[in-house]
């Protein structure tokens, strides 16, 4: 860990001024990831700007009937917020699938968006990593890569984004509100996180002098037919091998709208709008779900240890869509995987049980 300055920002404008003035500075809120990275000498900020007391901890309705979540709302508060539980249970479920109770108490909404990959090589300064040290190479491509990405990879980086919350936010078409020296702007969730390409050191489209102030959810919450299904190596406190946020708008057993976001498989929460669109007006059957899964995974590519993720993702998508269609979302406390994939050639009504 290096020496660093510490300062506190009194308001958002001052936070922006401080970060704009020091290219080596980092914001700190819950610190659940940044402090680890500093201890490992992976993050070496010259200054920590403490934003934890900024007035960004409110959850409030928006004019259009959506919900605005302040960037400093702790993950635990958000997961149990009555409005979130009632209107966006997919988000609540994804939050509870992540980390541990202790970490969720500390972790903020904005910080969750900005957490770094858990790629072993990124965390180990004794190894090459293009994300940590641009140009040093990617050791994971030919190394220990069982946890790594199968979609949207580049020869320079095959890391995954570790968040569960973000997978739900991607499915819900959230927007990220940010403030910079030039004022406020909104970033569509899909555009917030980046694919690695040849600049894997850049995780997001957030500018260096911008601060996240809130996340906004549109009115449509898919509160009836949804699930967050996370498959991992132990039953809690592990990053996803594959996770799926699925949300369906069903009418008489036919899909009006489908949302499918994947975690654990790419450098960002993975959405495939084309595959989702193909489900429109389809019956909620295994055949339709299979076509969607195959479409989502058509360009998936495995590496030496993670090729299994392609089939696992396919099965997880199928089960998640089935859970959503049956309105039997995965419980995050009962670790039994709920439901059953509908058998071939049997259609399901999609009505809540």
């Amino acid at each position: 860990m290096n020496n660093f300055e510490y300062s506190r920002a009194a308001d958002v404008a001052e936070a922006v001024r401080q970060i704009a003035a020091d290219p080596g500075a980092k914001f700190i809120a819950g610190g659940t990831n940044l402090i680890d990275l500093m201890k490992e000498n992976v993050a070496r900020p010259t200054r920590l700007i403490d934003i934890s007391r900024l007035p960004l901890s409110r959850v409030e309705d928006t004019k259009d009937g959506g919900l605005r979540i302040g960037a400093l709302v702790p993950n635990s508060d958000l997961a149990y917020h009555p409005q979130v539980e009632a209107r966006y249970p997919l988000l609540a479920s994804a939050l509870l699938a992540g980390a541990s109770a202790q970490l969720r108490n500390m972790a903020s909404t904005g910080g969750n968006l900005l957490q770094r990959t858990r790629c072993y090589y990124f965390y180990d300064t004794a190894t090459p990593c293009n994300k940590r040290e641009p140009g040093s190479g990617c050791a994971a491509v030919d190394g220990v890569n069982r946890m790594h990405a199968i979609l949207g990879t580049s020869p320079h980086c095959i890391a995954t984004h570790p968040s569960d919350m973000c997978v739900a936010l991607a499915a819900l078409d959230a927007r990220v509100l940010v403030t910079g020296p030039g004022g406020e702007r909104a970033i569509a969730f899909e555009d917030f996180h980046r694919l690695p390409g040849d600049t894997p050191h850049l995780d997001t489209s957030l500018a260096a002098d911008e601060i996240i102030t809130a996340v906004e959810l549109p009115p449509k919450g898919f509160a009836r037919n949804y699930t967050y299904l996370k498959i991992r190596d132990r039953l809690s406190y592990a990053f996803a091998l594959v996770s799926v946020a699925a949300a369906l708008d069903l009418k008489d057993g036919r899909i009006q709208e489908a949302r499918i976001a994947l975690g654990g498989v790419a450098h960002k929460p993975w959405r495939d709008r084309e595959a989702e669109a193909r489900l429109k007006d389809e019956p909620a059957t295994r055949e339709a779900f299979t076509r969607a899964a195959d479409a989502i995974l058509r360009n998936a590519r495995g590496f030496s240890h993670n090729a299994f993720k392609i089939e696992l993702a396919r099965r997880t998508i199928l089960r998640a869509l089935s859970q959503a269609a049956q309105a039997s979302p995965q419980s995050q406390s009962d670790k039994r995987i709920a439901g059953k994939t509908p058998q071939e050639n049997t259609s399901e009504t999609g009505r809540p049980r």
Partner: protein
Amino acid sequence: MTATTYIGVPTSRVDGSAKVTGVARYAAEYNMRGMAHGVVVSSPIARGYIRRIDTRDALAVDGVIDVLTCENRPNLAGSDEKYRDEVAPPGSPFRPLYDDKIRYSGQPVALVVAEELEIARYAATLLRIDYEREQPLTDFEQARAQAYVPPKKRDGIAPPAEDLGGAKRALAQAAVRMEAEYRTPIEHHNPMEPYATTAIWEGDGQITVFDKTQGVQNSQQYAANVFGLSPDKVHVMAPYVGGAFGLGLRPQYQLVLAVMAALALKRSVRVVLTRQQMFTFSYRPATIQHLALGAQADGHLVSFAHDAVAMTSRFEDYQENVVNWSRQLYACPNSALTYKLAKLDLYTPCDMRAPGGVVGAYAIECAMDELAHAAKLDPLELRLINYSDKDQSEDKPYTSKELRACYRAGAEKFGWAKRSREPRSMREGSELVGWGMATGIWEALQVKASAKAVLGRNGDLEVSSAFCDIGTGTYTFMTQIAAEMLGVPLYSVAARLADSSLPDAPVEGGSWTTASLGSAVQEACMGLRGQLLRMAQRVDRSPLAGARLDDVAFVDGNIRRKDDASRAVSLVDAMRAGDVERIEQSATFEPEDDGKHARFTHSAIFAEVKIDEELGVIRVTRVVNAVAAGRIINPKTARSQIMGAVVWGIGMALHEETLVDHKLGRLMNHSLAEYHVPVNADIHDIDVIFVEEKDDIINPLGVKGVGEIGIVGTAAAIANAIFHATGRRVRDLPITIDKLMR
């Protein structure tokens, strides 16, 4: 002893409140005025040489006191013998900062010493070290081709027993056969407390050391040897140890570096390793085991071949007993066992809870399950058919073996009789249900150990020994035995441990402490009894006149005649009559081996798994572990030992694996986020049963030890349950989703 007051009674840990209130201090929690902090710099390369170390930037940081490297280190012993500790395997032990050669990734290459921990940690990042890299070999599958029989055997580890009959021929003629290869990965111990040493400079070359260790006298002798000091100049203590599981058996480099810095700088120094550094050494070696079993159609074993290859470092031949267990457990006329090592550019492996036994039993008990399946027999029935009343490796009967009772009690509690034999035949909704079982076996070891008992005039009793309590309940059972022997309340007894100046004891390991130290404490207290009776007989018109020790009982602070409880003298009165402030008695327990018996603990483990058929998500919903381990001194802490070991067995079956990057020769998942151990969600019902096992031969207490037996066989029971659920035999631990999908 028949009726007891304390022995065999569930007793809360006497050190429990100190631990949960933070009063108990661990090696890294001793703060001295003027203490400096050392941070270890670890090698990023696995093999090669240090060309140059530039310490200028680090030394320029305000508050940095010194940077110790192979270039400027103080004098260290120059012969292997000086680095060989009590439990060292054959070879040339690692010497910290000794030379410029890099032997494994993570090797300590410098110690940065500073006034504050943060300064040392920062300065450690400023070291510029130029390495000459060589390509390491860490791929076990590749190294296996060069596996060899270790020329020199490790002390205390039985090499594979000689061939019995002709296994190959018998296998060829067997009506039922199985043949398979099993793999177990590198695993790390992961105690809560990392390696840590606080070395306190006392002046005059005297050093007091608080070390994270399982053997204070082992650390003392080692440090004295390495630095050429007289052992009386090195006082080592480890009153509390935050888990060790074997990794504290050998003194490790943080001890050398802390003492080195304290001697060089003439001030107190603390060195604590990071969790990441904990993952660079001290591990359970991976194994590849080939099993070939043959049986008659009725299930009687006719052939048992077990060939194991395990990994070791380039500089030491670490060895375990992996393959002897079948011979010690089952009756089989033809048996062939081999054990080889393959050298890698890794640190030397390290004993880890039931070393050898846990990996050997995994393969043996899965193979027995495969044989049962091939023979269309119930797996439990197959074990009973091949039950042995003698240890075939030495042709000796056991001091005791209540394994049948374990099978019976475990099966009954589990409901094994309701199992349907065919795989994939039990279901619950979308989940497949599987029931599996396995046998556990571990040596009932005993070692020479000393203890001292001191009784004060006011009735306070102190019992002590240099043994450590690594969290297993040593303080508590000593207290129970001493209280029982002298008939005083538990609160009158103070137990002292883990101080190199106390009566001699070896490392705390091998599940031998209760049997060995318990016996020594009992004997010391017997001595006090004799002294007390003689003094009690000096009381005026002593009601105990003429009584012999056999005639009296020590109960409720009194010595009283067994045939007439009204004839009694209190301990306090006896002490007064003797006109002494204190009486003391030392005793040394030396295990008696009559050469005619085999000594083992046994267990039967039954496990239930529920598996989502499509997604491969495994839940271990029930485990019953029935243990026969002689007399149980403290059923409460003993139960905790078995519970913890079962949890670990679940981890071994499903989660634990240290991942190696062979290009870099580096262990990669070096954190508790990425190296998976079970969490609460992974653990459901665990039932522990101790079956009655009377053993009059093993030692006067009839005690065997329960520190390790609980993990032996557990992973096999789960693997067998997974086969029963799915019909898929994954022979490569841990059994993860990807392997089940393959």
